[in-house]
């Protein structure tokens, strides 16, 4: 009897699914403003906001963005249906975006962008007013997690739960002051020192207890993630930090139906690696080694000059090859690869990375 029931429910599910397959799933419309909250208002965050402002005012194109320039083929190759992605699904428009952030430095976004030296001064000058209006809120920071930098704009609290409460207040204040209908948190701050999951990360209950007890294995990024999810705000992790990749955060995310994603933006070297490695694998060309070197001089490079932060990055970069090449299936081709990842911090390079 239970078996029949199980089958029946499965059939019902399939039935339901096929109905949704035909007509699509419900999606609420993207009405109102979308607030973007960024821990870490450095080179990445300021380039993103300056870029959005430049596109919004029509002085730049959104190059590299699937949501803005990408298309999607529908139906058969002979159907000739390839709408833009942003016309196919209801996405917020660039005019709907409003920004805030947290940083350990007090610089507004214009000053931070000028110091980062990524975008040309001409372009920055054209979006100066908008960027100047975005000032960082005091950050949650722990020097033990990012050894190479320190700054004055930091929150004080009696424990990590208290710090999370302060962030939650920031989030509620921003929701109110910006008039945003919905919010997103996206981590654009530094790589933290390497930590492995401990008992504190195994359930929401143990996480909350550890935060109250100021457990050393609760990283600042986790305090942000916890605060976001508790406020019902989705969290994206742009760094290789553990952050939301622990059972406690998965539990919180699923329980509250607040989405999470990560880790570590695939920008340069790994983008190429995940294009080249599948080609070798497809042709079953064996490999003896892969030498990945990076020369860079921005704050990212400075932070990664610390062995603890580098270890976090190294783990993130090493995993890709292993999973693509599947040495356990192809021991004679990929069983003995020497994979070396090096990061060389060389300040004169600035943000101009060579890999």
């Amino acid at each position: 009897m239970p078996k029949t029931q199980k089958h029946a429910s499965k059939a019902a599910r399939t039935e339901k699914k096929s109905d949704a397959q035909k007509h699509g799933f419900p999606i609420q419309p993207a009405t109102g403003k979308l607030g973007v909250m960024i821990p870490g208002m450095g080179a990445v965050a300021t380039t993103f906001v300056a870029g959005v402002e430049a596109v919004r005012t029509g002085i730049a194109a959104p190059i590299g963005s699937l949501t803005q320039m990408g298309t999607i083929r529908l139906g058969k190759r002979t159907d000739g249906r390839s709408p833009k992605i942003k016309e196919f699904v209801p996405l917020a428009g660039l005019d709907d975006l409003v920004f805030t952030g947290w940083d350990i430095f007090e610089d507004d976004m214009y000053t931070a962008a000028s110091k980062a030296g990524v975008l040309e001064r001409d372009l920055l000058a054209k979006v100066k007013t908008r960027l100047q209006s975005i000032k960082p809120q005091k950050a949650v920071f722990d020097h033990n997690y990012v050894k190479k930098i320190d700054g004055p704009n930091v929150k004080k609290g009696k424990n990590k739960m208290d710090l999370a409460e302060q962030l939650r207040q920031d989030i509620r204040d921003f929701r109110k002051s910006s008039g945003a209908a919905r919010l997103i948190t996206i981590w654009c701050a530094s790589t933290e020192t390497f930590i492995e999951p401990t008992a504190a990360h195994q359930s929401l209950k143990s996480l909350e207890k550890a935060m109250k007890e100021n457990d050393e294995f609760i990283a600042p990024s986790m305090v942000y993630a916890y605060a976001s999810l508790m406020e019902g705000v989705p969290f994206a992790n742009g760094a290789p930090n553990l952050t939301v990749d622990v059972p406690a955060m998965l539990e919180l995310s699923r329980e509250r139906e607040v989405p999470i994603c990560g880790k570590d933006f695939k920008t340069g070297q790994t983008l190429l690696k995940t294009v080249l490695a599948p080609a070798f694998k497809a042709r079953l060309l064996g490999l003896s080694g892969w030498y990945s070197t990076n020369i860079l001089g921005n704050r990212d490079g400075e932070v990664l000059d610390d062995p603890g932060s580098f270890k976090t990055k190294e783990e993130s970069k090493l995993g890709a090859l292993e999973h693509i090449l599947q040495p356990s299936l192809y021991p004679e081709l990929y069983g003995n690869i020497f994979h070396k990842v090096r990061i060389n911090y060389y300040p004169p390079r600035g943000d101009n990375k060579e890999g």
Partner: protein
Amino acid sequence: MQIKVDFLCRDSILAAPIVLDLVLFLDLVQRTPELRRLGIQEWLSFYFKSPMTPPGLYPEHDLFIQLIKLKNTLRHLRGEELITHLGLEYYD
């Protein structure tokens, strides 16, 4: 055989469009119950060096598999046919 790639880039300029896409797609997710309830948004692996997966499931790193996953997820949401690239039907 040796392949050497000398890759010169401004890292933050490559990261900025990723930030924009993730913001807009995560916002789509929070308006879509079918995706929101899942927690981890594996279909956004395309944007990550080290994509998150639930325990016991290995991540897809191949950029083009990731792109197919992303687009098929959008097709799935809108009730469009998934594209498998089988293509036998063109020869019927």
